[in-house]
Each structure stands twice: as structure tokens, then as C-alpha cells.
């Protein structure tokens, strides 16, 4: 019973994701106006030859800040996990 359900779920997910190759065309994006702006203006506005860098740090710089913070968060989380517990610190059972 459970196997059938799992198979059905996978089938539906496959169908759901298959809309992507069916309706999007690879190598020929439907609309490009935003990126045309980036390519055209990146060199003048951000003064960088690498448009990806100018997108990453200038046009979408705030995302990059968020991303660095994600890394920092994960490092802090790992530090929390590997820390030494003090003797006698309270135990939380159940």
C-alpha cells in the first residue's frame, strides 16, 4: 500500500517537473530585458568587465550579503554543535 502511494507521489512529481522541459525552451529564453540591461549597463555602471560579478556585487549585492550571512550562520551553527559542554550543565531528557 505504502509502496503504491510512494510510486504515485513520484509519478505526480515527475509529471509536475516535466512541465519544465515541455514549456521552457533551452538555449532560447523567452524574455531577456533585465539581462540585456545588465549586459549593456554593467560595464558602465559597475565598471566591471565581468558582468556576473557586477550583478553579484552591485545589482544584487544585497543577496550576496545575505549569502555571506548564511555561511556565517552555518559556521556558527557548527560551532554550536561541536562545543564542549560544561560539567553539570542541565540535562534535558525526554
Amino acid at each position, binding site marked *: 500500500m505504502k509502496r503504491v502511494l510512494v510510486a504515485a507521489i513520484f509519478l505526480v512529481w515527475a509529471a*509536475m517537473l516535466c512541465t519544465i522541459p515541455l514549456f521552457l525552451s533551452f538555449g532560447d529564453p523567452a524574455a531577456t530585458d533585465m539581462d540585456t540591461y545588465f549586459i549593456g549597463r554593467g560595464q558602465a555602471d559597475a565598471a566591471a568587465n565581468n558582468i556576473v560579478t557586477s550583478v553579484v556585487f552591485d545589482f544584487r549585492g544585497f543577496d550576496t550579503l545575505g549569502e555571506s550571512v548564511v555561511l556565517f550562520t552555518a559556521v556558527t551553527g557548527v560551532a554550536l554543535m561541536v562545543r564542549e559542554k560544561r560539567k553539570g550543565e542541565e540535562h534535558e531528557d525526554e
Partner: protein
Amino acid sequence: MDALFTLDTGAGFWNPLLWVLGAAVAGVIALVLYSLGRRDYKPGTAQAEPFLSGNPEPEKGLVHVRAGNLYWGFLDAMEGYYSSIVSLHTGDLHDYVLWYLGVSALFLIVVVIIG
């Protein structure tokens, strides 16, 4: 003034101040009833001790009704429902993920078929 405090819900309204006023009035009535009670009650004397058919009073810790025993009747009456719903909470990560995936799949079917 009333308009400031009255919550209009479209079908009706509710004024919390009126409610508080009502509660205060009820409190006053309760106080009056309380003052009409017996005057010769004194705590700390034999008057206050419970009478349990002559048995000695059990220890304080034992008379406390623990949480697991509350609503036993309700749980018993709904046993069919509870046995099925509790068994869904397996604590297995796979089941958690599968429920999520399954509900997404169900959503997709509903959304695509109906509109």
C-alpha cells in the same frame, strides 16, 4: 467614544468595555453573596478539615490529579479517532517528507484540474 472601542464585524459588534463592566457587576454581586455567608467559619480549626467517611486524609502529593488522568473519558470516547490520528505521527523523517511531497502532489492535481 463608543465607536472607538466597538469592534464592528460586519454582522455584529462587540464592545469590550461593556463586557468588562459586566464582569465588574458580576464580581460585585459575587462579593455581596460572599458577605452574606456564615460568619462563624474559622480556618485552622476542625471545621476546615475534610471528612472522608472517617478515613484519614491522604498525603497532599497524592490528591493532586495528574495531567495524564484528565479528560480520560473524552479520550476514551474518541478512541477510534485518536488511534488513527496518533499513529500518523510516526516520528519517521521519511513519513514527514512523504507527507509533504504527497500534499504537494495533491495540490498540483487540484490546481491543474480545477483551474
